[in-house]
């Protein structure tokens, strides 16, 4: 049992014909995925008369930053500065990511690797809550949040996400792949469970950790605070953006500009974490 760090050699069982046909299939699918996205980005750079031009054109004729400057002008005229909304969202995003990843990993490890009474039932509960859909839990959750005195605080946005089942379920599934023998050897050497988790397991499930980072970033960055945040100076960025762009048909371009701006940070975080996931390819997986 060892973790080897050699670079993979040229892969076996690969044909040139196969590689090329795979690339063609992937490029076709990529075009299908990308075209609507490009269309929505292009809308943001169209002047008003082009957005409603007939026949509609895919590409912009006279690209303009009008929509962006209009967005800037409206957000500048608010009585709460734009930066306030931005920092509110930044705050819940950073705290949410750190707390969710820490608590989910801490709990996922014993659930994945140790046999203690209650484990099976609790694990089952996690899966079941992932499968319960429907907006009907919103009311009981609202009552609980209000009873705990968290209404109109960031706690109401943060705690339900941190206690959510998605991250723990993903990390737990990956942790089950860490060989028992590795943990038993470390236990014999006198390592505590915390040490085993942080020193041995976390490096091995790095791809899963980075994936939960993406999920949590998206959840928090796009969070509107639901019905919980009512004070104007506590509102989150997506709420403010949607308030700006729902000014009727005249704000269509502004809406497109705001969604382009809102997706940029997600795109950057995604690229950064994906390149880290790809980096782990240099290692040769988990083995006994």
């Amino acid at each position: 049992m060892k973790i080897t760090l050699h670079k993979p050699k040229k892969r076996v069982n690969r044909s040139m014909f196969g590689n090329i046909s795979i690339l063609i299939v992937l490029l076709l699918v990529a075009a299908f995925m990308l075209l609507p996205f490009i269309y929505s980005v292009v809308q943001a750079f169209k002047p008003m008369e082009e957005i409603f031009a007939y026949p509609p054109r895919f590409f912009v004729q006279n690209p303009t930053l009008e929509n962006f400057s209009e967005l800037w002008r409206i957000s500048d005229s608010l009585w709460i500065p734009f930066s306030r909304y931005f920092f509110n969202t930044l705050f819940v995003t950073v705290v949410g990511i750190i707390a969710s990843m820490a608590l989910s990993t801490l709990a996922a490890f014993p659930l994945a690797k140790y046999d203690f009474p209650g484990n099976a039932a609790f694990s089952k509960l996690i899966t079941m809550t992932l499968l319960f859909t429907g907006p009907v839990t919103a009311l009981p959750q609202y009552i609980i949040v209000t009873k705990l005195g968290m209404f109109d605080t960031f706690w109401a946005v943060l705690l339900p996400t941190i206690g959510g089942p998605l991250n723990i379920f993903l990390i737990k599934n990956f942790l089950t792949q860490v060989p028992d023998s590795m943990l038993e050897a470390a236990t014999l050497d006198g390592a505590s469970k915390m040490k085993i988790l942080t020193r041995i397991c976390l490096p091995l499930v790095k791809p899963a950790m980075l994936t939960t980072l993406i999920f949590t970033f998206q959840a928090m960055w796009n969070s509107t605070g639901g019905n919980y945040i009512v004070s104007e100076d506590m509102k989150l960025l997506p709420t403010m953006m949607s308030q700006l762009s729902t000014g009727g048909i005249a704000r269509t371009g502004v809406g497109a500009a705001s969604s382009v701006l809102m997706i940029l940070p997600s795109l950057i975080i995604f690229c950064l974490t994906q390149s880290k996931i790809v980096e782990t390819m240099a290692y040769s997986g988990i083995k006994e």
Partner: protein
Amino acid sequence: MIVSSGTTWQKMKKNADCYLMVLPFALLFITFVVLPVIGAAFISLTDYNMLETPSFVGLDNYLRVFLEDNDFITAVRNTLVFAVVTGPLSYIACLIFAWLINELGRHARAVLTTIFYLPTMSASMYVIWTFIFSGDQYGFINSMLMSMRLVDEPVQWLTDANTVLPVIMLVQLWMSLGTSFLSFIAGLQNVDRTLYEAAAVDGVRNRWQELFYITLPSMGPQLLFGAVMQISASFSVSSICITLAGFPSTDNAALTIVTHIMDYGNMRMELGYASALSVVLFAFVLLVNNIVQKVIHKYAAT
């Protein structure tokens, strides 16, 4: 799983630190996720409109779901058609594309992963499809078809009961490379590379054989995760339907179980009935999930 021996009490004492590690998450999870579900289950046994105190009605709401609600039948039919088509297709697409991308070089892989994931990156990205499939001649598809003289007048994509469900399926498929896709991408990194070299010696001759004999069986936990996410996503389709087809849609052609629940829960304020519908959906999804999990357990080590 490291198995402990002894009585329940001895096991609990031996693993006391496990309980401490689970506790902080468990507190939040039970308070904000489990209790609301239990609360909804209780509400399903009552008549509750948010203004008056709920009155206990036993199983009346459930009887009404199965005996009186004709729209529920429509919703179930649409949801089933939708889930049976998009569920397996999305799952296979996630798997195949994650695997194919993994065959590429480092930079191509990062770029393609990003492109494939783009549609799910923002919660409202799919709204662009309302412009693409808009029913007037300003709709992108309509204007293309008309300029090519394939149709004389705009097709009512989103209000024609025959076309709206396929359009929603297309958009759902467009958005399907999300959570499960990323878990597969991450899971592929954990497969022991030396297994492939050993397999080549043992007579595995092409990448398809590698996929079925080595890659998939070593990805059990990811396959399970992806299945749960995909089942839950394909049975809970709702906001796409409302955005694209409006609510109510023509002849209820885009009515799904979850939009039906929203109708009663958020508009008619019949929370008892909406909760009963959610519990029925939950029971069904749980059943589907158990079957799928059994199949995956048989195939892969988990």
